[in-house]
């Protein structure tokens, strides 16, 4: 009797166990159908689904987009999508920030630098079927610049404000007017020359949207249902999960895009994302842990893709706080930071030591400056000269989050702490929640700190002036370094009309910065992506997002 009861209970348990394990068992039979794997042993049945699926690319990434109306956005995850749905007037060359034609085929700049005439590509249509023309360009710019425009955002368009000196009617506003001369010609008149004007127009945020779609939906709805002229058409957004784009069959760049469908899938955890790639659930991923780069290289089914570097990670000094107000002290600390060792240990070699606050990939970079080498004796000597033979105590703020330019702030800070100890500097590591960190460093509460910057548009001004001009104290100049000579040169460079002239000025600025050491540039990191081995023509752009029109699967 007892036995029967026990067996009944055990059977129910067993049944459940079998139900669970059974899921795995039947799974194997199903696998080839949904996950074409290169190593699948039976080639005949696997080959066919692989072919039909090969027009669909699934990209894993760490976070969701904020919104899909480019002008409303400032974050990289949003631009990864908008770059594929929209086009800008001018674009950037593959893998560099050199300006190339896009929606505008060619342009003329008046000698005084105040008039720009763009000749637009003809026959281009928005995804909703309306025509792209000079009126559409004019409408977009008016929406951005005119605060009273019905489709202007109540919170403003931050990038427009930053890049073009405010909005219509502001004293510093750059663009005086935009005129549609004829359907294919649009003329910009500026209030004052702006050297990086063309460069700015290529930024992801200044993409041209369909006026009809924005008017019909209003900015809020358009932010979730974007309509542009780009290689892919927006299909669906499942928040925090996937964004699906489909091929634009009428794309103006004939023969492209190569893929039928693009799916961006959010997988927050870096390790889980790599697992999904190895198990074939996704085709490529960004945000690879530097430590996993070797595993990707060793895996025959995968390839490692490196994004050209356009960032800087640095150790900054709040020059208003003692003893960091003494340039000798700052220089001493600079000698005590072992950059190559840090890059080897924490960037897994995916980066290069930085000398200047901007990377060599940007024009105007001063390659003649020779960096201070790691030398503790020299550091000690400088400290003695500065009046601190026995060192001092200092608070060292370490970043609490990983950023492309700083993979592990606290660990890097600890490494630096060890070397500083050897020259008598007792650095106490301070860290806090990220938003608070940003806020407090902006307010200047820190002493020594670490931070970084990823470039927006490949212009030297976007690094040098943003990070170190005295006008940006209280903003992004968290070192609070106010150097009159540097300021004069930076302002001159902003209004200079020729690139040669600007280049000369930036070279000088970098020398002043190097001499006065408001910061120790640490590294320009190389962000890594991983993809299936059969993906070709993926050209990662230094600015962090790019159009995937040319990407395809190798047959």
């Amino acid at each position, binding site marked *: *009797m*007892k036995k029967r*009861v026990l067996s*009944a*209970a055990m059977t129910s*348990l067993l049944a*459940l166990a079998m139900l*669970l394990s059974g*899921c*795995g068992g039947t*799974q*194997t039979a*199903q*696998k080839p159908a*949904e996950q074409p794997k290169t190593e699948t042993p039976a080639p005949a049945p696997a080959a066919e689904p692989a072919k039909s699926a090969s027009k*669909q690319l*699934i990209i894993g990434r760490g976070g969701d987009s*904020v*919104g899909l109306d480019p002008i*409303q956005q*400032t*974050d990289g995850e949003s631009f990864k999508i908008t770059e594929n749905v929209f086009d800008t007037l001018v674009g950037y060359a593959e893998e560099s920030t050199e300006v190339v034609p896009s929606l505008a085929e060619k342009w003329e700049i008046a000698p005084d630098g105040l008039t720009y005439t763009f000749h637009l590509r003809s026959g281009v249509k928005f995804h909703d079927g309306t025509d792209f023309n000079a009126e559409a360009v004019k409408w977009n710019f008016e929406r951005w610049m005119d605060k009273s425009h019905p489709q202007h955002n109540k*919170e*403003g368009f*931050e990038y427009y*404000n*930053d890049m073009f000196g405010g909005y219509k009617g502001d004293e510093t506003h750059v663009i005086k007017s935009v005129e549609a001369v004829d359907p294919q010609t649009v003329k910009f008149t500026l209030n004052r020359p702006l050297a990086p004007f063309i460069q700015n127009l290529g930024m992801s945020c200044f993409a041209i949207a369909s006026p009809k779609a924005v008017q019909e939906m209003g900015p*809020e709805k358009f*932010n979730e249902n974007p309509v542009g002229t780009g290689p892919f058409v927006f299909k669906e957004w*499942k*928040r*925090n*999960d*996937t964004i*699906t784009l489909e091929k634009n069959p009428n794309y103006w760049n004939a023969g492209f895009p190569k893929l039928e469908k693009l*799916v961006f*899938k959010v*997988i*927050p*955890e870096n*390790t*889980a*994302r790599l*697992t*999904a790639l190895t*198990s*074939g*659930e996704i085709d490529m991923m960004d945000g690879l842990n530097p430590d996993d780069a070797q595993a990707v290289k060793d895996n025959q089914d995968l390839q490692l893709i490196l994004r050209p570097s356009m960032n800087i990670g640095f150790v900054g000094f709040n020059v208003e706080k003692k003893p960091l107000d003494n340039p000798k002290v700052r220089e001493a600390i600079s000698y005590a930071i072992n950059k190559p060792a840090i890059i080897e240990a924490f960037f897994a070699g995916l980066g290069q030591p930085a000398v200047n606050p901007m990377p060599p990939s940007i024009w105007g970079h001063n390659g003649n400056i020779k960096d201070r080498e790691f030398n503790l004796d020299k550091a000690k000597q400088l400290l003695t000269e500065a009046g601190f033979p026995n060192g001092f105590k200092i608070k060292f703020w370490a970043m609490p989050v990983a950023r492309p330019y700083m993979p592990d702030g606290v660990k890097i800070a600890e490494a630096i702490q060890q070397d500083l100890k050897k020259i008598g500097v007792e650095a106490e590591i301070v860290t806090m*929640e*990220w*938003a*608070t960190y*940003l*806020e407090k460093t*902006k307010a200047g509460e820190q002493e020594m700190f670490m931070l970084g910057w990823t470039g*927006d548009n490949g212009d030297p001004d976007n690094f040098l002036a*943003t990070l170190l001009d005295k006008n940006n104290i*209280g*903003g*992004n100049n968290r070192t609070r370094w106010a150097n009159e000579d540097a300021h004069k040169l930076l302002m001159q460079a902003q209004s200079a009309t020729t690139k040669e002239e600007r280049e000369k000025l930036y070279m000088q600025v970098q020398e002043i910065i190097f001499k006065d050491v408001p910061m120790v540039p640490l590294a320009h990191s190389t962000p890594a992506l991983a993809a299936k081995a059969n993906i070709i023509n993926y050209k990662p752009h230094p600015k962090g997002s790019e159009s995937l029109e040319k990407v395809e699967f190798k047959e």
Partner: protein
Amino acid sequence: MALLSYSIRRILMLIPVLLGMSIVVFSIIRAIPGDPALTILGEKASPKAIEDLREVLGLNNPWYIQYFDYLKQILTGDLGVSLHSGASITQEIGPYLAATTELTIVSMLFAVIIGVNAGILSAWKQNSWFDYCAMLIALIGVSMPIFWLGLMEQWLFAQELKWLPSVGRDNSRNPVEAITQFYILDTLLAGQWDQLWEVIKHLILPGIALGTIPMAIIARITRSSMLEVMRADYVRTARAKGLAQFWVVYKHALKNAMIPVLTVIGLQTGLLLGGAVLTETIFGWPGVGRYIFTAIGNRDYPVIQSGILVIATIFVLINLLVDLLYAYIDPRIKYR
């Protein structure tokens, strides 16, 4: 009748509970350091832009005005607008809530079926090898970090054995057309059997990861509760009558033993609903836990407030359900 008036009283009690809850959440999130305007605009924002945004968001108003504005809004069924995405929370939270609910149900089914049965068998075969093994597993289960368990599952079942998918709710190469946002239901409604199978497969690993701790707790509670009941006089009488052990256990003992177990199940379900952040992060599950968690990072006050309030409401409702179930199981329970 008594049950009805009790139910009504319990439902009315939700009002002060939720009101208190809203005050607590509102106060706590304002104690978090960091400026939402700065966080929204990012590290590149200019001070003027931040100040403008603070004004637009009403962050410059005194906090009690902000609270009453919020309360007014909630009472009209409007959960507010996300500062981050600019979308309406009432609309935005739906799919997240559905995703989490689906995962929670699967986890609890797993936890209850395995946990209750293991607990019963352990009590029945007290001090046997089964008892020892089950309780050892339960002990490991409660102490296991979800993060580690999740990554191990992915490594073994997805990466090495390739049996189960590691992330997401569905196969992105053949996505589910969402109707109700409950994917099992959606695929059933659409009659998409291959997709249904995909959805089930996607539920298994996160379901086990999330269900392991409640399973272990339920097994332990069931065991001790059963042991206690089995020593009761009426059980001894039942046995003395010559009733088979199976009926003694499953008919007489179990019903009474289930009361504390039900409480635990209710509490655990509530905990899972809100505490799924880790599981959802590892398994790329677009659920409400991650929604609120991301909102905390973004200082998205309206989402944090409304999200927690929604979770709290569900939690309270589940407890109400548990209380009502008590009455069904044990008529001796009186309502005052």
